[in-house]
């Protein structure tokens, strides 16, 4: 490693004379030597010596770190009368500029140490979560009202072009990634089903299982999670960057309603796109499973379809699809809400984008569990 320490300079030194009244100092007192000088000076016990003169006339080079050490040494000698510092005139201004009294107040840590600190953190997180929940509920209310208004006066408040643009960005552009991942998940589920069920000689049930899992849960859940990572984060980053650039402020001064212009197109666009994507993901998942079954079980495609037809009802598909618009709404709402929470610095965008993805994935899974409970109560 390159380091300041091996710079070629005359070595810095200091020496206390026998009576302990004069400290001779010389060489290059620079930052390169400061770590060593600091240790050696600390070893020198200077307290209670009375007046000590520092003779720094042999100093060949002095920078601010060296000057600070000299100054500190003089201060350590205390206000003992007669303590004096001789320094070449060249370096006087530097030393004088550093030698200014500064009142340094002990810094109060923001978080107190120990048990109180932990309590403080718990309390802070709790209040923060509470207020955030209240705030996001308020936001939900505002968006609901604005949505109703927008549909009441669609000519003025509904940005149709923006909605279609969002459908393209969040739906059509997501087709490759959603399709590929769903296909692979289908392959994995079929493979696991075949190997496990073969032990009971019930390999063919794999197809039933695959169909039910894909249509009811996997299709919609995978799609929602991918879209939360892909589009939810994009919403936060886009709106957040607009906040950093003061674009949001500019829109408000012009009189544009930010919910109408930025939030509604994203929410409506995603609510339309996600169910369609889910259907597509279902198909791709089943396709992956069918190919796996053909190679591993020798089940041809028509046979696969017949088996699937016996296992599934339209209801199975609908149970999955009905969840999609709800998940879409939550993902878009959280994405936009967090975007508006961005403060005017770049770090904030990254922080809130992460938070937006974590929150929307969390909410999607919690809601999915709630749906499961609801369906089991309704015996669907």
């Amino acid at each position, binding site marked *: 490693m390159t*380091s300041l320490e091996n710079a070629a300079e005359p070595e810095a030194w200091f020496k206390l004379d026998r009576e302990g009244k004069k400290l001779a100092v010389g060489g290059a007192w620079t930052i390169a030597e400061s770590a060593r000088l600091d240790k050696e000076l600390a070893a020198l016990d200077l307290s209670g010596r009375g007046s000590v003169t520092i003779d720094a006339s042999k100093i060949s080079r002095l920078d601010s770190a060296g000057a*600070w050490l000299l100054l500190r040494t003089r201060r350590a000698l205390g206000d003992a009368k007669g303590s004096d510092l001789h320094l070449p005139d060249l370096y006087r201004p530097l030393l004088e500029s*550093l030698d200014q009294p500064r009142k340094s107040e002990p810094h109060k840590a923001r978080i107190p140490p120990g048990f109180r600190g932990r309590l403080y953190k718990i309390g802070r997180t709790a209040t923060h979560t509470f207020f955030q929940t209240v705030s996001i509920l308020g936001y939900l209310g505002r968006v609901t009202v604005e949505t109703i208004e927008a549909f009441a006066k669609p000519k003025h408040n509904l940005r149709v072009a923006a909605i279609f643009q969002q459908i393209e960005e969040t739906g059509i552009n997501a087709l490759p990634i959603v399709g590929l991942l769903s296909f692979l998940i289908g392959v994995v589920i079929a493979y696991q089903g075949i190997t496990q069920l073969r032990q009971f000689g019930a390999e063919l049930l794999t197809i039933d299982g695959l169909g039910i899992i894909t249509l009811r849960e996997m299709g919609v859940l995978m799609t929602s999670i991918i879209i939360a990572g892909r589009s939810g984060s994009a919403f936060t980053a886009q709106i957040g960057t607009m906040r950093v650039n003061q674009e949001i402020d500019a829109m408000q001064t012009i009189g544009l309603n930010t919910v109408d212009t930025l939030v509604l197109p994203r929410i409506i666009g995603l609510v339309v796109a996600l169910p369609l994507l889910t259907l597509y993901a279902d198909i791709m998942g089943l396709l992956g499973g069918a190919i796996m079954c053909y190679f591993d079980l020798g089940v041809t495609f028509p046979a696969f379809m017949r088996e699937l037809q016996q296992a599934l009802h339209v209801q199975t598909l609908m149970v999955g699809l009905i969840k999609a618009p709800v998940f879409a709404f939550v993902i878009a709402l959280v994405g936009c809400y967090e975007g508006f929470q961005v403060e005017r610095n770049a770090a904030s965008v990254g922080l809130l984008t992460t938070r937006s993805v974590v929150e929307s994935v969390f909410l999607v899974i919690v809601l999915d569990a709630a749906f499961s409970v609801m369906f089991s109560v309704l015996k669907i």
Partner: protein
Amino acid sequence: MTASNHRDKEAVIQVRGLVNSFGNSVLHDHIDLDVHRGEVLGVVGGSGAGKSVLLRSIIGLNRPKEGSVEVFGQPTSDDIESPAMRALEMRWGVLFQEGALFSSQTVTENIQVPLREYTSMSQALLDEIAEMKLAMVGLPCETGHKYPSELSGGMKKRAGLARALALDPELLFLDEPTSGLDPISANQFDELIAQLQEILGLTVFLVTHDIDSLRAVTDRIAVLVNKKLVIGTIEELRENKDPWIQDYFSGVRGRAALASMDRPTEEAR
């Protein structure tokens, strides 16, 4: 004085035949530049004339198309971790436009970053040095515990300057240090730079838009115009026939800023 004169003429930065271009547009066309030890060189030019690119080419953040750049007699390169570049990097300090403070660290920690990288100081000494640098740039003690996002623009620049000065560099690069500051803060910043330059004997490479800064702190000025550099003192440049330079120094703002210079006073510093 002859000895010191010779020392004054030692070129700290030496740029020869520098060419920079982006796509088809040439930004710098075979530029030569010498910056001497102990001088303050102001670099001006219109928006997009390539002032910042020139600075970046010198400190190795931008690889020039052609030409050579030497700092302290060492060629600079964009291999910032090579031993030769690290040896240079500890002899210069750079203040970026918005301060470029590390946002995840407090101001004190920011100042200590170069110190930790290049020295083996104890934590106590690190804290003392950081505190001293804060005092040097005129920031109160409590600023040290704050994060960059809690600082105003002017404070960020001062904190950035404190970090640039952490290793007691011989050469200081300042990229538009007064842009975005109110005139009073800008004046204070100019004074601060002049003061530090005098006390620490720094060589300063100052990129600026601010004609007041030029008057207050620079020894010579390099004007980037028509892809070339025109170098001289303010007086020399005011005689220059180039329309952009004429406009710059003799326009309304230029005249107002320079008016105080024509009066035979010493208040320029």
